């Protein structure tokens, strides 16, 4: 599925296939887009995120059962990030759940809309209405230490200082916009869910105040603050605890699909944990073994070259008692050091919204 904004992207845009979506990986260069995102304000084409609406009298009960966090009182001015699990506790997708007047709207992770839809339909015991809105709505993001200024110039200064995960239904040039304060990278972050026919206009207007950044820059910045990227981090058989996504699950909730498996993983302890590392030469491929004192303790999950660190940055899944910061490990024949997150301190943390 191509981006509805493809015709508005610059000619040199490099696209890539992420799950079921074709998304802009970069518009210019990774370095440049990364700097924009970390130092100024970036506009993101999040069209690869599927949008699925759940409505009907039992919408909330259904969502409460399939989502791993508490959404019973998720009002139409709030959103939250959570997981959908299968009965074995395996991650199906990581979503942003928006409370709506008549139900919920789920935003999938990049390229996972189809899988999310299929999972929802397969688990629809309540007979709720599940509508794929990805054809008529799309998502634009703003992210960066000065993204709040863009919001003020683009829509309304009042929206810039919305609390995290607050949502406002507003309008832009006559179009209904679901506006949310979100953030994937530790910087000020906002999302705008807009009708596709207005998306190109909003994209172009946003570019008058900010620069576009592609999926590569976004995922790098996400990794740097340990924001989970399911397509890289969810591996066959890994539990929520091993992935380090416990915070996206609420086991105090009485019931949800996958709860027993998560509880079992919590109670079992042991297993592996995910830890960040940097250093070494080159970027190790996923699956590269991780050693310490000649012992195989795990494997690399995902690694890239971090523009911010000027070094390799990756995640390794290792024996739980070795998942600590400050350890020297051997990855692909070179030495790396484990880290505490965030690996880069976002500039937004020291910049107030005025």
């Amino acid at each position, binding site marked *: 599925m191509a981006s509805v904004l493809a015709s508005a992207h610059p000619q040199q845009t490099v696209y890539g296939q992420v799950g079921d979506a074709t998304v802009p990986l970069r518009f210019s260069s990774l370095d440049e887009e990364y700097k924009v995102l970390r130092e100024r304000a970036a506009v993101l084409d999040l069209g690869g995120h599927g949008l699925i609406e759940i409505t009907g009298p039992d919408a909330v009960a259904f969502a409460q059962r399939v989502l791993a966090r508490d959404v019973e*009182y998720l*009002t139409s*001015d709030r959103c939250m990030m959570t997981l959908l699990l299968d009965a074995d506790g395996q991650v199906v997708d990581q979503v942003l759940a928006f409370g709506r*007047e008549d139900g919920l709207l789920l935003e999938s992770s990049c390229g996972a809309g189809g899988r999310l839809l299929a999972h929802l339909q397969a688990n629809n015991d309540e007979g709720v209405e599940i509508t794929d809105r990805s054809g008529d709505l799309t998502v634009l993001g703003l992210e960066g230490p000065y993204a709040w200024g863009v919001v003020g110039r683009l829509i309304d200064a009042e*929206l*810039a200082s919305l*609390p995290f995960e607050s949502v406002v239904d507003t309008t832009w040039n006559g179009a209904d916009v679901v506006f949310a304060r979100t953030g994937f990278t530790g910087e000020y972050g906002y999302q705008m869910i807009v009708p596709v026919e207005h998306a190109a206009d909003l994209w172009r207007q946003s570019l008058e105040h900010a620069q576009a950044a592609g999926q590569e820059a976004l995922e790098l910045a996400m990794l740097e603050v340990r924001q989970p990227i399911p397509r890289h981090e969810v591996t066959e058989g890994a539990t929520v605890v091993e992935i380090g996504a416990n915070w996206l699950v609420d086991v105090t909730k009485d019931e949800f699909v996958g709860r027993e498996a998560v509880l079992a993983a919590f109670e079992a302890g042991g297993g592996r944990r995910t830890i960040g590392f940097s250093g070494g030469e080159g970027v190790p491929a996923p699956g590269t073994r991780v050693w310490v004192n000649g012992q195989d303790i795990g494997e690399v999950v995902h690694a890239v070259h971090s523009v911010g660190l000027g070094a390799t940055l990756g995640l390794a899944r290792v024996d739980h008692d070795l998942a600590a910061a400050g350890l020297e490990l051997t990855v692909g024949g070179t030495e790396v050091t484990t880290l505490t997150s965030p690996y880069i301190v976002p500039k937004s943390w020291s910049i107030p919204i*005025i």
Partner: protein
Amino acid sequence: MALRPVVVTGLGIICAAGRDPAEFWQRLTTGQGGLTPVEDEAFAVFTARHAGQVPDEWIADQLPGSDADLDRTARLALVAARQAVGMAGLTAAEAGAERFGIILGKCQATPDAAGRYQPMHRTQDVVAERLGLRGPRILVSTACAAGGNAVGLAKDKILTGEADAVLAGGVDPLLFGTYAGFAGLQALSTGPCRPYSHSDGLNLGEGAAFLLLEPLDLALARGAVPLAEVAGYGLSADAYHATAPDPTGRGGASAVRRALADAGLTPGDVQYVSGHGTGTPANDAMEAKVMRLVFGERAGQVPTSSIKSFVGHTLGAAGAVEAVASVLALRHATAPPTIGFDEDGQGRAGDLDFVPNMARPMPIGTVVSNNYAFGGNNVSLVLTTPGEPRPYEELPRRDAVITGLGPVTGAGTGVAELTEAVLAGRHGAGRGPSLEGRTFAPRSLWRHMNHLSRLAIAASRLAWEDSGLKLPRKDLDDVALIFATGAGSAESTGGFDESIAVNPNKPAVLSFSNVVLNATGGAVCQTLGLRGPTTTICNGGASASIALDCALELIRSGKAEVVLVVAADETTGTAALDTEDLPVPSPYDSGSAGAVRGSAAVAFVVESAEHCAARDGRPYAKVLGTGHANGDAAPHTDAAPHTDAAPHADADADAVARSIARAFAVASGPTTAATPAAASGAVAGLVVGAADGTAGDGTEAAAVLAGASGARLTASTALAGDCQAASGALNIALAALAVRDGVAPALTGLAAPRAGDLAAYVTKPGLDGPVDRAMALTAAPGSVRGAVLLGAQ
């Protein structure tokens, strides 16, 4: 529609920057602040030392010797109250004691002369007694916004015709515990505070301020000089956080917009804004946003200053202190400055005009005075140069109905459980309510809530669901919430006080944020997403009926169509639900063993009849009338001082009779003459009384049986115990149930009534059917008695 103009004719103030209005204004305009290191050695444990203290002699010099034994809070209040009455030249005798009210804002529970906590409303009762004020009496406790809120509520009491003069103000002393709490929150500046420039924290202060409000026509008729018109006021809830302001400023902006709408003005009419300006980074940044949101591109041209730079943050008094300054700014056409302002420093909001350091003479016809409080309560007042007398319309009468009930009591949680308990004749007195079996709030919020807030949230959620209301997000922005409590959270107050006793530098800060009485109301707003007008009433057991009055006023004035009233109080000593053999109080019985304290929250939804009909809602009952009267005896005045807080039996009986007569009078027609003759239609099938199982029950019963002919009397305290404000709300809820469903609790243990025959009481569970009219009584003995008359549609 132009309503009756209400003006200020008297001012009184005592604070760190002056002992009276003249000295206060002289110091404000010459930049002489009053923030000094705290003299009390006990405060030496804190790094931050500056505060706005009132010299003892300023108080002593202005009070008669007979006031010397009163506590500091009462003494501060009396100084300012007498000044205001003196400046206005209006005594209670001239205005008519019954027509002269007092509305006091107060943030802290304050100690009596012996150092023990006294009821929140006690200071107000002392002032009322000394000045002989027997009209409407409300203690409003919206934390740091209370003083401004009081001025607004006072205007309402004049518009409803219940009073011809109201003393409105605020008071708070400097208390060690509060100081420790703010220090623990890292909210204190180490030097004199510097709002809007350095913004490194606040200073606490103490003081009292009052404004005397009268209708313009009556003020002119008696030759008084109107100083300013109270053109409008606006309340709002942030629904965001217990202590931090909503960073968008939308809560504050909404209060200003509501106040301007109430005044019939626009932002373009405003010349000066008296800011809240505490000097904390969160407040000052948020206020800059409010200025920009409200005034847009004109924000930089509307001077705004903070006189907290002179007097510190006087908490419950602050809004009144700043209202007095605002009236003086209008009178003298001068904006007081923000002193300590760093003009060369990197101001956070360089485009705004904070009137740095020098008072500024300028034409001022309209002032907006803003206050923001813990609990996310915001208040804005609009004060204008007094206009000419002009024709006006009465506040319209609009029918209001009760459409949802949310009881959370030891006898049951929710209407179904409560009804079942009533019909089965079960008693829940002394038992704690159960919140098991379902959730009432997002877990992420719930786990941070104290017990009282959980009770109140559960009650509110149940009432809301019971009403069948389904409102979109934008309509919730206008749903009002009135919280009623006698003493707030016993758990948080106790926990905080204990932590201070152990180490004043390690206060339990989470408990501290819940010590303010309005914290629970704020938690309800946050949980249910209500951003409409909000306030908190603390008149002991009479709080719920006074809160209902506020709800009715919001509906009558068109400021809200839907108001949630929630009352909650707790005792730390309740037993588990399955405990056997608890003592049961026997209300009205001469053999009763006494009262049993309980914990409960009871909420009810009040809706305009129009709104309810439009959505095909099913109301329980229509609110036919309410009435309140004071229980202190008339002779307790300056002329005949009387300091005993215990209710005087005759005065109490009189208060019950008068409150009932007033409720009947309101129900019978538009006249407000509260004479017994007006009570010709004084029939109620059922009266749910405020009896608690003590000797005072006989007084109430005798007055009820005389004043509400043919009624059968019952009470709720065997069912749920004496739960202060929540008992009053439970009585209202039970009266509503009797009208719609024919359900009423029975006094199963009643054998020998203290007054009247046994036949006059409900002694068997259930009624013969729904009653046409039912009355609920509320009581803060020795202070206020309330009556609420409900009827079928």
